[in-house]
């Protein structure tokens, strides 16, 4: 574990260093990407200026709502669908094909349903994330040994109680994959939607900087998204490891 973290950090350092060299020597033109050191400095300045704080707060708030509701709704739907093997099997191809829907073509529809506020972005983040959670919940529940189902029956539990007290706790570590994907997809969904239809938010700031060739703003913001996503993923990764460590001989 410690060794892995060290190697990971070393790897990141190596990549950053390589980028620094490539940009400093001009192999990557400054117009395309500034050196990482300047990105970090830029991010620092940007945060100090206070200019992007509202955008960051907005975006992270939207991501949190999208992600949390995707996890809640996704596991509920997953539990419901998984109760019938036939239903789960019949829906399987549709769950994966769902990701081929060009969501961005349906912003008008989003507006028609959710109006012209910030709601559509949350909805898009939610919609991308929720299916990943559903699919994974089904996968995770499929692994529940029959004996635990029988145990629930022995206690005379209702399906709901069984899901809450036995199935979901048992599947916890396996649900982690779904949670990780939910984090990824709510980031992608919310920020992606902000590119197109938002007045505020990191996505909007990035796309504005992109169009204005303000690399010293764009890259720090991308870096910021990476850092936040990395931190959130890291937390979930640690949580998952803790769950798993309880369940394995050290």
């Amino acid at each position, binding site marked *: 574990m410690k060794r892995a973290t060290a190697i990971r950090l070393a790897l990141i350092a190596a990549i950053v260093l390589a980028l620094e060299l490539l940009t400093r020597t001009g192999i990557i033109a400054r117009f395309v990407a500034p050196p990482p050191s300047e990105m970090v400095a830029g991010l620092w300045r940007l945060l100090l200026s206070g200019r992007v704080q509202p955008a960051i707060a907005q975006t992270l708030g939207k991501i949190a709502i999208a992600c949390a509701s995707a996890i809640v709704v996704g596991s509920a739907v997953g539990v419901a669908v998984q109760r019938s093997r036939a239903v789960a099997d019949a829906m399987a191809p549709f769950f994966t094909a769902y990701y081929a829907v060009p969501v961005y073509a349906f912003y008008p529809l989003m507006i028609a349903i959710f109006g012209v506020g910030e709601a559509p972005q949350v909805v898009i983040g939610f919609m991308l994330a929720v299916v990943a959670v559903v699919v994974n919940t089904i996968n995770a529940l499929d692994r529940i040994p029959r004996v*635990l189902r029988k145990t629930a029956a022995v206690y005379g539990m209702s399906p709901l109680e069984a899901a809450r007290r036995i199935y979901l706790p048992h599947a916890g570590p396996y649900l982690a994959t779904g949670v990780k994907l939910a984090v990824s997809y709510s980031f992608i969904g919310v920020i992606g939607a902000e590119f197109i239809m938002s007045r505020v938010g990191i996505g909007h700031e990035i796309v504005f900087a992109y169009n204005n060739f303000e690399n010293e703003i764009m890259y720090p913001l991308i870096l910021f998204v990476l850092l936040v996503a990395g931190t959130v993923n890291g937390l979930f990764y640690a949580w998952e490891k803790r769950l798993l460590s309880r369940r394995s001989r050290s």
Partner: protein
Amino acid sequence: MNVAATDAAVHVGLRGVTRIFGTDPRTRVNALGPIDLDLRRGEFFAVVGPSGCGKSTLFDIVAGLSPATDGTATFEGRPLDGRTVPEGVGVVFQEDASFAWLTVADNVAFGIRRAGLGAAEVKRRVDDTLAFMGLRDFAAAYPAQLSGGMRQRVCIARTLVQRPRLILLDEPFGALDQQTRLIMGEELLKLWRETGATVLLITHALDEAAMLADRVGVMSARPGRIIDLVETPWGKDRDSRVVADPRFGEITARLWTRLRDESMSALSQKAG
């Protein structure tokens, strides 16, 4: 073949019980029966039989976990509906059913806490049961930190703490090596003596059945019927030393002979 018993003495009663899986005539499986069997109140009954003969199917019916296709099954005089496990019945499965996300103490407390017992009473009962099952030092451990045998003991403790009047065990020591099984068997005997509960033990180990049970039911190959009922001569205070008794050899030989043919026929069934 079934030994008659008076109504009050009958704890579990099976009459003409059968079980058929599936409805399509081409694929349906005649898994069990017909079975006529009475378990007497307070007796230790073991069932042996070849693989796939319907032991677990029988077990599920007695537990109230699944319905008989035909015939009637009663527990304490009331019919089992095949959907709910009646109060007073404790079930231990062959597989490890401990809750990996709970500590040993929380595992054991699970059922009685759900039943709404006060915290103090829960603690007292859990502590007693853990002590009895030799798990006191592991109250705060998680199942993964225990050996397979200890995890099985956790499941037994979780069942016992509810003080069932009928204890059902489906090959509970299947995952253990032979030596550990015998030691666990002794603990089970101790428990049975102290609680006075009726015990139904399903096993494939003939020596285990011969040593532990008052009566051993031998099942035929599928569809499983009771083809022999063997009464053992041991007293209530028996332990694993009975294996040295010459009658022990006789009993296991009788079981083995009954079963060898049945096993052969079960194996060829599987191949078919």
